[in-house]
């Protein structure tokens, strides 16, 4: 599913987090929002998910050509993965992943065997078979983040939004999960936006990179384009290309 962001502005008190940002993401792209902390990249992701609402009335968000600006996060149902996992600690892995089915109205809820099948399938995809009964607190950081991925994917979202998904993990796990994400995207072609402040991560994983600073998009391009032709001093400086 394609995503279009049109003229989004967002202020926190008086400080502008996003100033008139527009962005087109074609279907099946894996795109990285890259920038320093406080640049507005996470805010943009949250506005797309519906966790934050843009200020100006003329700013719009489209999912596959459909205007979703006035839909709440639970109606948009974008798969969202948080930096600190945000797993439900009182539920085991199985119930965490099954959550998006549990909250469906009875008429739309798949029968339990179908849910179980989906959960097992997802656990296999994230290489955590047999972990159904574990509680989140009994898992390592990397395992928790993989459960969070499985949970976000359970009800087949059409877009996947990742907020610094590897930010809290150590270097080795980070590398493995990065590669896993790239492979996963290649096999599913799920439109994916992920936020990071780590340029290596962005350049290694993403099809295109969006550089953001001070609430403005500074440059959009493939990793090689951006490296070869930095658009302005910020990009040159941020990428350390001097």
């Amino acid at each position, binding site marked *: 599913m394609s995503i279009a962001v049109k003229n989004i502005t967002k202020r926190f008190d008086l400080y502008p987090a996003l100033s008139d940002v527009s962005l087109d993401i074609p279907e099946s792209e894996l795109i990285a929002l890259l920038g320093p902390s406080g640049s507005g990249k996470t805010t943009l992701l949250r506005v797309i*998910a*519906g*966790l934050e609402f843009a200020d100006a009335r003329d700013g719009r968000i489209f999912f596959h050509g459909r205007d979703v600006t006035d839909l*709440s*996060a*639970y109606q*948009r*149902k*974008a*798969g*969202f993965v*948080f930096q*600190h*996992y*945000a*797993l*439900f*600690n*009182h539920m085991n892995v199985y119930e965490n992943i099954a*959550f*998006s089915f*549990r*909250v*469906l109205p009875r008429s739309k809820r798949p029968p339990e065997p179908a849910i179980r099948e989906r959960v097992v399938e997802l656990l296999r995809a994230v290489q955590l078979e047999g972990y159904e009964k574990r509680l*989140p*607190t009994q898992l390592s*950081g990397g395992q*928790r983040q993989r459960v*969070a991925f499985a*949970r*976000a994917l*359970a*009800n087949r979202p059409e877009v996947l939004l990742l907020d610094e998904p590897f930010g*809290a*993990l*150590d270097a080795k796990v980070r590398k493995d999960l990065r590669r896993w994400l790239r492979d996963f995207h290649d096999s599913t072609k799920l439109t994916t936006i992920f936020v990071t402040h780590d340029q290596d991560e962005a350049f290694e994983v993403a099809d295109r990179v969006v550089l953001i600073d001070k609430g403005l998009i500074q440059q959009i391009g493939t990793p090689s384009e951006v490296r070869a032709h930095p658009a302005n001093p910020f990009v040159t400086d941020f990428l350390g290309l001097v």
Partner: protein
Amino acid sequence: MAGSTSIQIHKRQPIRATADSFSVRALLIGATLVFFLLFLLLPLVVVFQEAFSKGGTAFLETFRDPYTRHSILLTLLIAVITVPLNTIFGIAAAWCVTRYRFRGRSFLITLIDLPLWVSPVIAGLLYVLVFGAQGWLGPWLREHEIRIIFAMPGMVLATLFVTFPFVARGLIPLMQAQGMKEEEAALTLGANGWQILWRITLPKIKWGLLYGIILCNARAMGEFGAVSVVSGHIRGKTNTMPLHIEILYNEYQFASAFAVASVLGLLAIITLILKTRAEWRAEQELRASNSATAP
């Protein structure tokens, strides 16, 4: 043994720069212990001792008295009404001030604490002023034959006022510390507000909530001042346990007064045990949600 060796080590080289010398620590711990024994533990022992001063039969005799029985039932009834109501109000208030940013938010937090720093007697008088025979709504209430002051509704209102802060105060710091990432996750997974409350937020805060409910209940049963003002002390009608104790005491029925007091004391001890346990679990809860965010 282990204690004495560790003290010697501390004497020679304090573990932390902020650690006090042995004599200072001994003095502080000693003073706290003496205070605790003299002012907290001793009175509790005396209450039970006095309660049984005329023997077990006299103790039991107290509870055959219909007025005593009625006061216990009334106390329980008021608690049964006020505690659930204040639980709901408390959750709503804590939700409101931790989940939303709005003008007057910090004022609202201060307002929640109001019953803690206003004397309960004043709270009682406020209700008399509003609902009493000479009060603002007095004539209207008389016309419709509704009795609030010197009747149970007034006592429920006074108790509601006095016990309002406990649940909210227990929850606000906990909910603030836990943040709302899990709620946001639930939202993106398609849960609506109601489902988030029942499936995510309440399980997250359940021990903190229980802690608040226990404190609220203890205060509801023990409240004297506010209830005393609005009750009218009608025996067998508007006397709760604390009020009944006072009447018995004033009539020189010391053994009976202490017998009823011992029941309240027992409730306090049970409350303390439950509270400690809930507090401990609430801490675990918070640690779990914090450790879940660490790598």
